[in-house]
């Protein structure tokens, strides 16, 4: 806006509401479930530009699955999906407590975002590779990775698959299609594109998936990934999880005035979809669409998952310092677990009683895994990786200077 007094004014975006204020998402347009059409996967990207500005939704307010994106999952798969999300939530709760008890130094939870990684995982085939951030553990839970190993990593104990070298939650598993997590934001985005390029170079059938948060889209790696993906038509899905917050910074700081994060794909000629991230069915349907596109060599897809980070950024963060405490209650897309639960109840496939029973079962499973993991030690007690392990793996073969240092360390 032009200043009337003839001098320039500096603009710094601010969220609508700060602590003490009343949460208000009335300015967030939420299209009706079922209102966005499902184009064929070989559509010309220019014909679906609208999809970057809308929100694909399947579950309506009554818990019914409606519209062209509905119907990609069987009843059994939906029930299993609910269990995955509940498991991730219970896992988070136990690990948060473990951090408060001093059993680990750090943890990051997924509260509110469970549907994104759990539903997406189901659309992939064995051999596909995710390049996740630190908030996609649902890929492991839904992919059948042993929970005990996740906890061993979090505890940095003697059974830690990463030998105590990595901060908690920075898992890695080739077998489960889960690339090694890095603390450096967005670095994995161009790497995912490179992996996909490699698969195409080798005439393989496997595809790659890059993951990034709303805040981290501002990193230059984001731009590099999009231009490479577009140039080489890499078989990659580029996922943006827009949970509205990058630690204390609201998404408007990263957005730079663009309509949506998805819309950034349009300038690169990449089809861009925006989806209700709290709608398990919608996430799966969109994932399936993008996976099919990639698999059929039609090129990359950019997907923005609209969701909300209900929990603190990490165990080192207190959100009440920068946003209203009840803001998540006002979030118009609700809770992914409750929405899927209501859908199953509405269809007579589930009940409040069964849900309570499932909650108890899930908790038992998580507690059993935790007990098993704690047998191998926690960060400050019990078994731990050896000091010798600290020197291994810097290179395939230990060079002389590291051998000397290991000797100096007395191991």
């Amino acid at each position, binding site marked *: 806006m032009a200043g009337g007094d003839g001098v320039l004014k500096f603009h710094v975006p601010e969220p609508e509401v700060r602590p003490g204020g009343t949460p208000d998402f009335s300015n967030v347009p939420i299209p009706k479930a079922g209102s966005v059409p499902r184009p064929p996967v070989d559509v010309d990207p220019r014909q679906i530009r609208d999809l970057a500005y809308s929100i694909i939704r399947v579950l309506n307010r009554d818990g019914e699955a409606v519209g062209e994106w509905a119907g990609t999952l069987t009843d059994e798969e939906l029930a299993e999906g609910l269990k995955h999300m509940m498991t991730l939530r219970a896992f988070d709760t136990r690990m948060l407590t473990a951090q408060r008890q001093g059993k680990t130094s750090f943890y990051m939870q997924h509260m509110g975002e469970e549907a994104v990684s759990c539903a997406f995982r189901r659309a992939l085939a064995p051999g596909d*590779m995710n390049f996740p951030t630190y908030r996609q553990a649902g890929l492991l839970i839904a992919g059948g990775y042993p929970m005990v190993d996740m906890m061993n990593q979090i505890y940095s104990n003697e059974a830690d698959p990463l030998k105590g070298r990595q901060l908690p939650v920075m898992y890695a*598993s080739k077998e489960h299609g889960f690339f*090694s997590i*890095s603390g450096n934001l967005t670095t994995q*985005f161009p790497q995912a594109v*490179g*992996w996909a390029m490699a698969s*195409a*170079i080798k005439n393989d059938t496997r595809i790659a998936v890059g993951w990034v948060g709303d805040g981290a889209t501002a990193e230059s790696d984001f731009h590099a990934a999009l231009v490479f993906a577009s140039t080489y038509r890499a078989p990659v899905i580029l996922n943006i999880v827009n949970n509205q917050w990058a630690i204390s910074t609201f998404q408007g700081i990263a957005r730079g005035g663009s309509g949506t994060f998805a819309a950034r794909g349009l300038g690169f000629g990449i089809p861009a979809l925006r989806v209700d991230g709290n709608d398990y069915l919608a996430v799966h349907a969109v994932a399936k669409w993008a996976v099919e596109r990639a698999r059929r060599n039609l090129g990359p897809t950019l997907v923005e998952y609209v969701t909300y980070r209900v929990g603190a950024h990490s165990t080192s963060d207190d959100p009440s310092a920068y946003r209203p405490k009840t803001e998540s209650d006002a979030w118009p897309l609700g809770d992914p677990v409750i929405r899927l639960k209501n859908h199953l109840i509405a269809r007579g496939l589930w009940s409040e009683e069964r849900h309570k029973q499932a909650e108890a079962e899930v908790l038992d499973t998580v507690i059993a895994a935790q007990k098993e993991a704690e047998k191998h030690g926690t960060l400050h007690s019990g078994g731990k990786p050896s000091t010798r392990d600290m020197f291994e793996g810097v290179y395939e073969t230990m060079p002389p*200077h590291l051998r000397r240092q290991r000797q100096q360390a007395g191991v």
Partner: protein
Amino acid sequence: MSRMTMIEAIRSAMDVSMARDDNVVVFGEDVGYFGGVFRCTQGLQQKYGKSRCFDTPISELGIVGAAIGMAAYGLRPCVEVQFADYVYPAYDQIVSEAARLRYRSNGEFTCPIVVRMPTGGGIFGGQTHSQSPEALFTHVSGLKVVVPSNPVDAKGLLISSIEDPDPVIFLEPKRLYNGPFDGHHDRPVTPWSKHELGDVPDGHFNIALGKAAIRREGGDVTVLAYGTMVYVAQAACEEKGIDAEVIDLRTLLPLDLETIVASVKKTGRCVIVHEATLTSGFGAELAALVQEHCFYHLQAPIARVTGWDTPYPHAQEWDYFPGPARVGRALQDVMEG
């Protein structure tokens, strides 16, 4: 055996590696159809196809980031950054990712990539076509850093780098691309065809990483050098009539400490020369190591002859470049000390 320039030797190394291993891919800015701004990849696209050798968008971080992803898949990318001066946008990918991948994933994922980049000055390249950033890489655990000084080494070391299971930063002194250079910019340059190190085997061969080469045997002082400075040091020794032992380090990380220590223990004196700026340059690491391992054999303080602690200038090229006169003076000082 053929006479090759360093450019031809580097090209031959990639050619041989691509022929032997389908997983070797070569890419970078202008690397494909055009064959590289220094002709290092000329003909490779034609011979191996666009899926093995191709042009990229102008994004160093994209080039290295994609290479890391490809390496995680199982390929062996050998990528080019057009000038070492332009590697900085990729620094995060190199330091935080390539160098750490094996360690942080406990070997679940590895990163066998080579990042080739022309380095060094002496060509009126000014600030952004002359830098020697090797110390920014030798400080990084998990990387290997190689600087060849002649065609035969360039080929053998590059093949070894491509076959190495860990990420290698391969710095090519562009001043040496067409012929050796001893710092005498006022004299005509001799091409590699007139130099015995221009004799390069046509097929596959390796020169091991982590092994230095003694270029001139001597008993009075040890000179530690790499890249262009190997020839500057040799010229300085001849001109001053000093019986110096000139060691071409070839690999900076891991370093051939054994060869260095044996030489300094024999000579009792050490001069370190590099083009890069002095403060916190690789010479500081060399001086510290020599001091630590040869203290009781040293008869004089260790000397360093390097670029000044300024950005690389244009007009003042030969006041900046540590030529034979400056190296010669240091040799004399150390002999008198």
